[in-house]
């Protein structure tokens, strides 16, 4: 595709199709569902971080007059302790099921133990407190390094460490150990003039979506189950329900309501199978919503981590060798993002000699789940901080260092693939040329300490299956039916791609996100895949429609389809020396019936995403508080379909990164209880904590997409942790290695407390 191609719709900023519903309060989210005869479900959760469930007595609770049904893990079908395919991933069914309702052991505080359906939510809450559970309290383990010790409390007696396909003699809490290496590490370090090695740690944190989890289920007499819910992927929910409840997928309809944020945390199911089971037993609609505390204590946080990085470079700044050990919290069941973190840690650089070891470790915290570029922010925090320290020691500009070492097309990524066309160096060059970088900062105004930090980040981006159906109405406007839930403006970014193909305006397209009975299989809105993969499905469906319309026009003009051309929304032909033309709308009117185009696409070639961020900040040396003064985020998005929403992804990622760097983290007491499970005590940034965020969209078109799109949603969360840590470290003159960099930690680093 030529770079100078002119677009009519792509690159413009139309108003999103679902906008009016969302600014007027009319948009229907999962918790807005109401049935006149519905019951309300509540979950009883373990008050202990680690305990054996000896018995559960529901007799008192059952006598509550408003209670209609009580379930425990005994009511879930027995599932095998086997690895099975689930949508586009693999999972151990026993773990999946045990996380819904604990069977033999409760593995974290907040682990569901039983659930109640009652006629009102207050009664359901009263009833769960009447359930008597006899626990044998066990010692919890809350730190991955302790969990790896040989005498650590064991979570799963049956767990065996998987290490490169073989068993390994490790603590039973180490679920897996992976290793990636190439080149000669020893020779690489021997060739280095400078080596920096450091340990880093990051706290367990949460995605922090504002809408809590919800599910409303109804079960009909014919065995058909319907679940209305908030999810990033309705088909993924259907797959999980099918496996956990042992029901055929075709008996389950999942209706994705509007979703109030997800960031990776609304892929895994929690209360959906519980609502379904309660509905199946009572034959009444059952509605469940989580409280904020339940979300913190019972749903996938992003893993806390310990990472050691050793990096060697020669005097010219060329990296000679790199080594990393990443230990990630899986939570109660195996499956942290350590694999993805291991892929991403050195990905922006061409490194000839490297070794990366990743450990997935279970401990008594909720099962971790994805959070925006899962694993990459933790990993790049460590590697990008070590790079900054090397730059300081070599007295080298950090942008210059990245220009020397940055990966480009043809270089090999640490896990093997050769990079296709990527835009990493373009982001570094854009940073170098930006006014922000050109302007120096006054390091010590008014006794406060100022610093500037730079960091880069990488995310693979995903493809996968998406389906789209386009119906052309007689008035020429089209319905675009899709399965991708719209979290951040994808109705617009997908519709605009179809509009571009058909020469229509964005407003001519009416996108609809529908249930699992009404569209073909579509993967989750996640992995930065939606504008890319569902976009390609929409382009293909639009091309199908265009071909059909050419047939209609040819028929109308009594010509061959090959005689008809399509340009800028107009069908053209020459006949007997006469110029014929019809608009899209005129053709729709003469078509004489609906035109329908349905497509399923499963594109590869997602195109990797890179970003480089610059931050200036100020540290109050009396309080240790960090204030962000200026933030510039530069990212290669391939092609921005709707630039405002591409910028929005970047700005939102930066804000989450500021929280991760400075203020967010699960706090635990010795018993393994989270002590800050509310938005008051778990501190996410407010508008007053942040400055304006300047976004620079770099466009190095992705050859794997007709318009050049690269995923944009995840990589903006990768650089901020290191960028901010580098700035704080430079401001105070002490290397910061633990997140969050809360005021007490900053003061401690400065030797003030």
């Amino acid at each position, binding site marked *: 595709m030529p770079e100078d191609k002119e677009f009519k719709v792509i690159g413009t*900023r139309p*108003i*999103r199709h*679902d*906008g*009016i*519903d*969302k*600014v*007027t*309060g*009319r*948009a*229907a*989210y999962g*918790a*807005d569902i*109401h049935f006149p005869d519905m019951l309300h479900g509540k979950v009883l959760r373990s008050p202990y971080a680690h305990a054996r469930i000896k018995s559960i007595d529901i007799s008192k609770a059952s006598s509550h007059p408003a209670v209609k049904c009580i379930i425990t893990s005994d009511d879930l079908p027995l599932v095998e302790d086997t690895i099975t395919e689930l949508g586009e991933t693999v999972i151990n069914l026993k773990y999946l099921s045990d996380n819904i309702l604990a069977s033999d052991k409760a593995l974290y505080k907040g682990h569901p133990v039983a659930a109640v359906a009652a006629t*009102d939510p*207050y*009664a359901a809450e009263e009833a769960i407190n009447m359930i008597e559970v006899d626990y044998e309290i066990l010692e919890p383990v809350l730190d991955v390094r302790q969990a790896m010790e040989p005498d650590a409390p064991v979570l799963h007696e049956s767990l065996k460490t998987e290490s490169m396909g073989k068993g390994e003699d490790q603590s039973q809490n180490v679920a897996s150990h992976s290793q990636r290496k190439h080149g000669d590490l020893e020779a690489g370090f021997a060739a280095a003039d400078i080596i920096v090695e450091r340990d880093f740690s990051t706290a367990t944190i949460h*995605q*922090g*979506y*504002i*809408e*809590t989890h919800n599910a409303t289920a109804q079960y009909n007499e014919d065995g058909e189950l319907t679940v209305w819910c908030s999810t990033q992927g309705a088909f993924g929910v259907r797959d999980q329900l099918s496996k956990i409840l042992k029901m055929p997928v075709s008996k389950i309809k999942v209706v994705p309501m*509007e*979703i*109030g*944020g*997800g*960031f990776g945390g609304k892929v895994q199911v929690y209360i959906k199978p519980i609502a379904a089971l309660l509905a199946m037993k009572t034959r009444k609609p059952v509605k469940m*919503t989580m409280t*904020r505390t339940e979300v913190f204590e019972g749903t996938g946080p992003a893993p806390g981590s310990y990472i050691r990085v050793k990096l060697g470079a020669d005097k010219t700044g060329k990296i000679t060798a790199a080594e990393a050990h990443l230990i990630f919290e899986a939570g109660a069941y195996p499956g942290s993002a350590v694999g993805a973190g291991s892929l991403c840690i050195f990905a922006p650089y061409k490194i000839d000699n490297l070794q990366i070891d990743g450990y997935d470790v279970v401990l008594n915290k909720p099962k971790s789940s994805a959070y925006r570029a899962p694993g990459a922010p933790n990993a790049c925090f460590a590697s990008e901080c070590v790079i900054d320290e090397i730059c300081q020691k070599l007295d080298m500009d950090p942008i210059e260092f990245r220009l020397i070492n940055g990966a480009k097309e043809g270089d090999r990524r640490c896990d093997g693939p050769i990079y296709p066309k990527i835009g990493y160096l373009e982001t570094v060059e854009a940073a170098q040329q930006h006014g922000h970088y050109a302007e120096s900062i006054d390091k010590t105004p008014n006794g406060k300490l100022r610093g500037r930090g730079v960091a880069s980040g990488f995310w693979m981006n995903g493809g996968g299956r998406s389906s789209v159906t386009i119906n052309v109405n007689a008035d020429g406007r089209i319905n675009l039916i899709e399965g991708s839930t719209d*979290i*951040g*403006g994808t109705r617009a970014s997908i519709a605009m791609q179809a509009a571009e193909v058909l020469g229509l305006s964005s407003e001519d397209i009416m996108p609809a996100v529908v249930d699992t009975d009404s569209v073909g299989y579509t993967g989750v809105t996640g992995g930065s895949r939606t504008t890319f993969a569902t976009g390609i499905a929409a382009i293909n469906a639009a091309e199908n429609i265009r071909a059909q319309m050419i047939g209609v026009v040819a028929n109308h003009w009594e010509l061959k389809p090959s005689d008809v051309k399509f340009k800028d929304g107009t069908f053209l032909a020459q006949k007997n020396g006469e110029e014929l033309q019809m608009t899209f709308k005129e053709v729709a009117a003469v078509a004489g019936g609906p035109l329908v185009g349905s497509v399923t696409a499963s594109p590869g070639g997602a195109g990797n995403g890179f970003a480089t961020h610059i931050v200036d900040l100020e540290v109050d040396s009396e309080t240790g508080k960090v204030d962000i003064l200026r933030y510039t985020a530069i990212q290669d998005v391939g092609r921005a379909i*709707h630039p*405002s*929403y591409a*910028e*929005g992804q970047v*700005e*939102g*990622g*930066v*804000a*989450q990164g500021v929280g991760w760097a400075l203020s967010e983290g699960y706090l635990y007491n010795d018993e393994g209880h989270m002590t800050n499970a*509310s*938005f*008051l005590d778990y501190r*996410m940034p*407010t*508008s*007053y*904590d*942040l400055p*304006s*965020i300047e976004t620079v969209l770099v466009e190095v078109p992705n050859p794997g997409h007709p318009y050049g799109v690269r995923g944009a949603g995840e990589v903006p969360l990768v650089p901020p942790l290191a960028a901010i840590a580098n700035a704080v470290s430079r401001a105070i003159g002490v290397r910061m290695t633990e997140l969050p960099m809360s005021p007490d930690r900053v003061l401690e680093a400065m030797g003030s407390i």
Partner: protein
Amino acid sequence: MSKKTHVQTEINGEGIEFLCEPRQSLLEVLRDELHLTGAKEGCNNGNCGACTVLMGDRIVNSCIVLGVEAEGEKIETIEGIATSEGLHPIQQKFLEHAALQCGICTPGFIVSSKALLEQNPTPSEEDVRFWLAGNLCRCTGYHKIVEAVMDAAKALNTEVADNA
């Protein structure tokens, strides 16, 4: 279940009567009894602002106001912001500036912003950021929300000038 209380109030300009339990929050009454689901529950303890409504001339987190406290009050919710004339300029500017992503916090931000601009028609960026600090947004990083509110202030002031 405790005895229900009769409450007489005004919501979005209409006289409304409802029955509620003394323990029910105003948010629960709006959503579950009156089916005005535009106000959202994000935390249920007054920290996120997704449930923001106007009570008299004050903005309140309706999750920490009791339903019975609505007696004799004038309540304005997101459902009352647009009129038969069309969207309120704040709503329009949120759309134009792409100041929403998932949209769950948007009703609360719009109600809060309206209260701000009624009290302070020419806020600085600092004023907007300070005022809106009671509303959490996890998607946007606030940048476009602040821009939208500043631009809405400008639009409203132009409207006032044109009418003068």
